[in-house]
């Protein structure tokens, strides 16, 4: 009996060990590494760094950009998802492909595009210049590129759920006399709420962590257009290593918290789906 079992069990052990080593070396050890490195200089660095005006401003800017991106992508994401699932029209597959474009485009290319459109000599620059609106090297372009990068997350979470629930419930609601809006808020929205929340959580994570595009469009103006990630970048370049590590640790802590929330939501969603 054991002659059958032993080689199988040994093979399993090796596979599991390989996986643990891979994940450990790539993620766990570096994560522990940054905690140790950041906290090594002592607790005074923590308070000192986190109370520096530059840091506070950077974190605030990241929060503003993230908040606006989340609201915009969530609102329009639901509309696009609904149109993609419920409507059949010419160019639908084109629209479907457009949703995935940000996945394909490097964040640097996105920043570059903003530069081409709004930068000095850009296509749309004269229009905004004439009205005295600063787009590039300012908040609007930073929000714009972040929204661009975050477009797919909500849509890709909501579309499969909308497809799965089908039309029956919406039809039933309408036969019972509910208006289009009542149907949306009382039937459709509750059905997609976990997928939507999950999409928002992913969007938040991505917006907080965005660097490539804002690196280009922000103009790297210290204390003005500097987000939390840009602060880390500059601090590192200027050899303010402890501050760089400290803010990196802060962002890592935020994202781990977010991840725990995401996992929790995923389980909620799975449980909800398995119930139906």
């Amino acid at each position, binding site marked *: *009996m054991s*002659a*059958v*079992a032993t080689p199988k069990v040994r093979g399993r052990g090796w596979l599991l060990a390989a996986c643990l080593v891979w994940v450990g070396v790539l993620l766990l050890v570096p994560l522990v590494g940054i905690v140790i490195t950041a906290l090594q200089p002592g607790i005074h660095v923590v308070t000192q760094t986190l109370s520096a005006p530059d840091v506070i401003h950077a974190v605030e800017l990241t929060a503003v950009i993230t908040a606006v991106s989340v609201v915009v992508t969530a609102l329009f994401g639901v509309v696009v998802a609904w149109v993609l699932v419920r409507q059949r029209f010419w160019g639908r597959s084109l629209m479907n492909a457009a949703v995935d474009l940000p996945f394909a485009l490097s964040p640097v290319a996105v920043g570059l595009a903003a530069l081409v459109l709004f930068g000095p000599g850009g296509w749309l620059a004269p229009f905004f210049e004439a009205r005295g609106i600063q787009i590039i090297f300012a908040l609007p372009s930073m929000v714009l590129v972040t929204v661009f990068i975050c477009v797919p997350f909500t849509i890709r979470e909501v579309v499969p759920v909308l497809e799965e629930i089908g039309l029956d419930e919406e039809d039933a609601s309408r036969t019972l006399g509910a208006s289009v809006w009542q149907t949306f808020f009382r039937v459709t929205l509750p059905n997609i709420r976990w997928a939507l929340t999950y999409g928002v959580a992913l969007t938040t994570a991505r917006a907080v962590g965005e660097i490539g595009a804002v690196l280009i469009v922000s103009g790297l103006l210290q204390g003005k257009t500097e987000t939390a990630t840009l602060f880390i970048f500059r601090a590192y370049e200027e050899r303010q290593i402890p501050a760089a590590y400290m803010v990196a640790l802060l962002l890592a802590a935020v994202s781990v918290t977010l991840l725990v929330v995401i996992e929790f939501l995923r389980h909620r969603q799975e449980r909800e789906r398995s119930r139906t």
Partner: protein
Amino acid sequence: MSTRIVVEGLTKRFGSFEAVTDVTFTAPAGAITALLGPSGSGKSTVLRMIAGLEEPTAGRIVMGDEELTVKSVQERRVGFVFQHYALFRHMTVADNVGFGLRVRKEDKAVREARVRELLELVHLEPFADRYPAQLSGGQRQRVALARALAPAPKVLLLDEPFGALDAKVRQDLRRWLDELHRELGVTSVLVTHDQEEALELANQIVVMHEGRVEQVGSPGEIYDQPVTPFVAGFVGAANVLNGEVIGGHVHLGSIRIPGAAHLDEGAAAAAFVRPHDVRVASGDGDVSAVVERVASLGWLSRVSLRLPGGETLVAHVPNDELHGVGEGDAIRVDLRNPKAFLAPHETSAREEITSPA
């Protein structure tokens, strides 16, 4: 080519739960042995242990002269048919059937000839290049059978092979499997919860209940001479009458049912009487009863009776022997071939009669 299978003291524990306890039986060479029992009785686990898909906690399995227990699934050369077909989705019907020969490095020409031969056997030659998703349930199960038979296994193991099919297809496939088995004569073990299926197909039935063997015997023995109350209740329909053993009879109030001579005086006993053994025709039986309802089931009628003590009794009577018995009549009935057992602790036996056959 056929080989018998001996199963001895087979036990399987999953954690603290014992799914199979000390199961022993012999599946004769060339015959179909049915493992019959309700779901959760451990019959599938026994079959999976014979195939090597589960490892026994204790006991041994011998096929022919070979000790199977120490062999891997791959070495056992059994054909296994799964309840939900388990066809390889991404392979055509022909590739599915040829899989066992391919992994055993059989010559391509030999393989192709064998695949053709088997597709002919299961009447699916035109479907060779289709994918499983393009077939009906019955067709898929025939492919699964052809695939199991292709490497010429010494034994064929079937796990609820018709369980996922609808009634009509199940009937057809059952008849077809019977013919196929007569033709091939391969030793087969069939797991089923359907007593009709077991009675029709099997040469030998092993009735299982809660992980243990209740009785091993031919279909006739199992039906006519059940040795435990569970078998009497599970195989075929039966009325259960609970009473007390007095002088070798089971007494329920004024009613005396013979055949309890082997039981202790004064013990609580249950008498099992098949619906077709309740005779209403003679009119001179020793049990009085009131007819509550007569329902025609085609060529026979189901007559529901109430005994003086309030117990209900169901009789199956061919219509031409009904002789005008109607609802509300007080009649006398005769109980033939009763089987008396010590009363089981729980009355799990089916008292409701559902099927006329």
